[in-house]
């Protein structure tokens, strides 16, 4: 069966109000329906648009429009779905990631066009469209991605592959020359330490890459809190103090970034929840919903509480919905009446009257993301979702091998997943030669009749 592929179609590194995630293949509709809240979508007619939420375990990731296009009248002549989501890098990537975890494969550069071509869709075009195809093939795009890697990263990935090749060629030698028992015999016991080290390094690369994304794209910070806790004065203070580099994108109902500042070389995008100050119950309700949505898009949430008043039901509700956050105890110039905050989040005290707590808050954010010393930070990160996905695939394969190894699965079977990890890392740095392995066997081992 043809594989079902997904990728982000818009150039997601730039700022857009909307990004498009595209998926094509026999399972496209099935996969999207697993993460899309709108239940009528799956059975709907072709070429229709559907409104709803992308969800992960009932958590709203984004509010989206989904375009359903059934085969064969599509770009690839397969079933296709386009998800129009919000312009944030984090959200868009998250949606792609959800599609991948639900069964889609990450599209190779130009693979949609390749499918279109292989399925005879582009066939009808005239000679000039050939050059169009080549452009859409995004060879340049993949090159861009390759150049985006720092030399250090390439070196690191290469060294991981080198370790894998070393292990693999040792396995292969044991297999192809079983009578040469004085070569190191690869066993369950000596596979584990090598792969554990590789696994840990890959995990670290993935985390750092996600940080790298933060450095590149900025940190999205949602400010939540009930009315009158001083949320907007906090925001104003934050924006006033630093030179605001972007402000006021209120006009768009879909995008609620209130303002951005640069702090220690990192861009902070602050979101606020408009409407939460209104007093009628209905609107209040919408406000809460909106806050939740905002928090799902944000990298971190700042919960603003008024420390001069005891906790209220709304405060508790907010606290219980936040997954990763910082508590900002505002109005520190007044007498403290707040007690027993049911949360493990770090707490910063401050007052907008005295302009205190602002530095601490910003420093805490930097600390939480491990970006404390930018100058010293090892900037070995992968620069796009494709690379991160490849690294994740590789890491999952290695982790799988480690698990299977514990179950005494024989080495020839384990080699399958080690090889697949090695290939994926090879694709990442543009070095994937099947022959490499065979060459290695001969350079490393002494064998023969």
């Amino acid at each position, binding site marked *: 069966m043809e594989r079902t592929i997904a990728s982000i179609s818009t150039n997601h590194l730039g700022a857009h109000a909307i990004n498009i995630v595209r998926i094509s293949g026999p399972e496209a509709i099935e996969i999207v329906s697993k993460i899309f809240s709108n239940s009528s979508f799956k059975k709907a007619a072709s070429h229709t648009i559907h409104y709803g939420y992308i969800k992960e375990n009932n958590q709203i990731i984004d509010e989206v429009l989904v375009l359903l296009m059934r085969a064969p009248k599509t770009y690839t002549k397969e079933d296709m779905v386009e998800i129009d989501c919000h312009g944030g890098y984090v959200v868009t990537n998250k949606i792609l990631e959800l599609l991948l975890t639900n069964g889609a494969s990450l599209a190779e550069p130009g693979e949609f066009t390749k499918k279109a071509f292989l399925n005879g869709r582009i*066939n009808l075009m005239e000679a000039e469209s050939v050059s169009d195809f*080549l452009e859409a093939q995004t060879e340049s795009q993949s090159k861009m991605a390759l150049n985006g890697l720092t030399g250090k990263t390439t070196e690191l990935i290469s060294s991981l592959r080198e370790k894998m090749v070393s292990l693999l060629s040792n396995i292969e030698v044991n297999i192809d020359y079983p009578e040469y028992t004085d070569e190191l015999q690869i066993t369950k016991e000596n596979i584990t330490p090598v792969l554990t080290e590789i696994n840990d390094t890959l995990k670290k690369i993935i985390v750092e890459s996600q940080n790298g994304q933060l450095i590149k794209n900025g940190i999205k910070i949602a400010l939540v809190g009930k009315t009158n806790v001083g949320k907007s004065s906090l925001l104003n203070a934050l924006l006033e103090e630093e030179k605001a580099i972007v402000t006021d994108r209120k006009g768009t109902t879909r995008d609620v970034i209130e303002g951005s500042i640069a702090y220690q070389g990192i861009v902070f995008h602050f979101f606020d929840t408009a409407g939460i100050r209104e007093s009628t119950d209905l609107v209040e309700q919408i406000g809460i919903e909106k806050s939740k949505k905002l928090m799902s898009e944000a990298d971190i949430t700042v919960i603003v509480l008024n420390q001069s008043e005891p906790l209220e039901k709304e405060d508790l509700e907010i606290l219980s919905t936040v997954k990763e956050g910082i508590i900002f105890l505002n109005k520190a110039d007044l007498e403290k009446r707040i007690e027993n905050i049911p949360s493990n989040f770090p707490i910063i005290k401050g007052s907008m009257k005295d302009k205190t707590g602002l530095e601490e808050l910003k420093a805490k954010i930097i600390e939480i993301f491990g970006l404390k010393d930018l100058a010293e930070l090892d900037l070995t990160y992968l620069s796009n979702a494709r690379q991160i996905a490849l690294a994740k695939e590789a890491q999952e394969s290695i982790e799988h091998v480690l698990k299977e190894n514990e179950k005494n699965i*024989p080495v020839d079977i384990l080699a*399958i997943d080690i090889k697949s990890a090695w290939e994926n890392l090879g694709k990442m740095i543009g070095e994937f030669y099947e022959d490499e392995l065979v060459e290695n066997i001969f350079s490393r081992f002494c064998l023969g009749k």
Partner: protein
Amino acid sequence: MNYEVIVVGGGHAGIEASHIAASKGHTTLLITGNIKNIGDMPCNPSIGGTAKGIIVREIDALGGLMGRVADKSHFQIKMLNQSKGPAVRSLRAQADKITYPKNMLKELQNTENLTIKEAMVEDLMEKDNRVIGVILEDGSKIYAQKVILTTGTYLKANILIGSTIEEGGPHGEKRSNHLSDNLKKYGFHIQRLKTGTPVRIKASSIDFSKMHEELGDDTYWTFSCDNPPTYDLKKQQKCYLIYTNSKTHKIILDNLQKSAMYSGLVTGIGPRYCPSIEDKLVRFKDKERHQLFLEPESLYYDDWYLQGFSTSMPKEIQEQMVHSLEGLENAEITKYAYAIEYDAIDPLQVKPSLESKVLANLYTAGQINGTSGYEEAAGQGLIAGINASLSLEKKEPLILKRNEAYIGVLIDDLVTKGTQEPYRMLTSRAEYRLILRHDNADLRLREIAHQCQTITETQYQNYQNRLKEIAKGNEFLKETKLKMNDNVKKQFEDSKKLIPTKTQTLYELLKRPEITMDFLSKMIDIPFSKDTQEELEIMIKYEGYISKTNKEVEKMKKLEEKKIPVDIDYQKVKNLASEARQKLEKVRPISLGQATRISGVNPSDISILSIYLKKEYPYEAE
């Protein structure tokens, strides 16, 4: 004289080629320099080995001779890699160097439509770029519609020992002096390759008491899926393991300049997987000792083969080297080690059918194509013979895919990548080795063989019966539950296996890595053969991995199915990188899939090519 097929050379490739063509009903002539040397094993006394044992099974499945003759001609057999997993198990037999050729000759003499002739071929006859026959040393001509060259190491062969060069092939046989020059004349690119063989030692002069025994398996095995074993388990012969030592190393290093390899005498390129002992010492300086194996060559004469000790040192140094080894202090060398250089063609000039791109109706197989090994030769010989026959029958050639057989991997590698050294098959060359197993060779290939009419009705029936048994076995495992009684619980406890919490079918139990068919048969009667048990156990236990492999295969197949027309003009394909254009011109791949495997042809070149094909050949590229 006029034949449908002429095969030049009676080695392992020539045997399979001539046998299959003749048994498919085509009048066939096998020309060899010496009838007594048909099926000769000039190097190691074994058939099979890792990957190679699987090739032998494939040859058997396709109707070839090697497997069933080896079954009748060995004195030790074992399954390699039992512990390393299902994908890489492979049989190796110590074949008797007297019995094997004798049994082989008998098979050929009993093959209808096959004539054997002793002669040397020195030229081809050609008309309009098609071969029409061969010219012998004495100038006589024999005509044929198809000619298959399986000349082994005999083209302009030189034997090198120390500083001496002798013209001639293995066993002091005459070499072919002019055939390779004549091939050059027709446009073949000739390359010079090298291989070597170690000393032979007289058994009575060996002190075996100091050596480690290497035994055969204590279960019966056969290469062939048609015949039951005929050997006696208990009568298997022993082989022995010994090691080099510091004394040996000193002798070799002190005399390095005297080796033909190091004095500059050898010009051919030798295989890295089969290095001489001097090569091993130079390249792996830190290794204190190297493993060597002593293997009997035959029950009918006294020579033992010293595997791992290939060299091109002068004879007197070889004496010193051998005598430095433990147990060989008083050894009598019956045959000195030598290196052999020979001419081979560039396999990039060969089509996947093994027909030549240079001359139509000419096929090449075995060492002339740049490979090494009896099994690699036999596999190609078989395919060359089948395809020469299919062409006579006006049928499409048989091209085995990389997911169908090691033979397919072998030929695809040769004709797509070429080779700079004698090519040996390794399991690591096969990307889908989990589905290219020894146990399913017949399941992979018998249907194909039946369609090509290369197996008998009985052989096909054997396959049908096996399919039925597997289906029945599978049903049995799915329907039969293992009841948890005291005996069963005890079995689990005794072998420290987790006792199932609820009653499970045998099928479900086999999914667990630690539960084997062997273990189950202690508690329940498994009513089908060992072969079927192995087959089903692998299919069930590794189902996930097998389906993963199959998905990869499907990806590859899509591209294999996109055929490239034979008359394509790469000059007309715009935007190709110039290196890619050159490589494509040279290899002339038959499909986009093959094109992707050519080194120097990048993914972007492939897409350009595929667009061109879609535009220019909208029907063929469907």
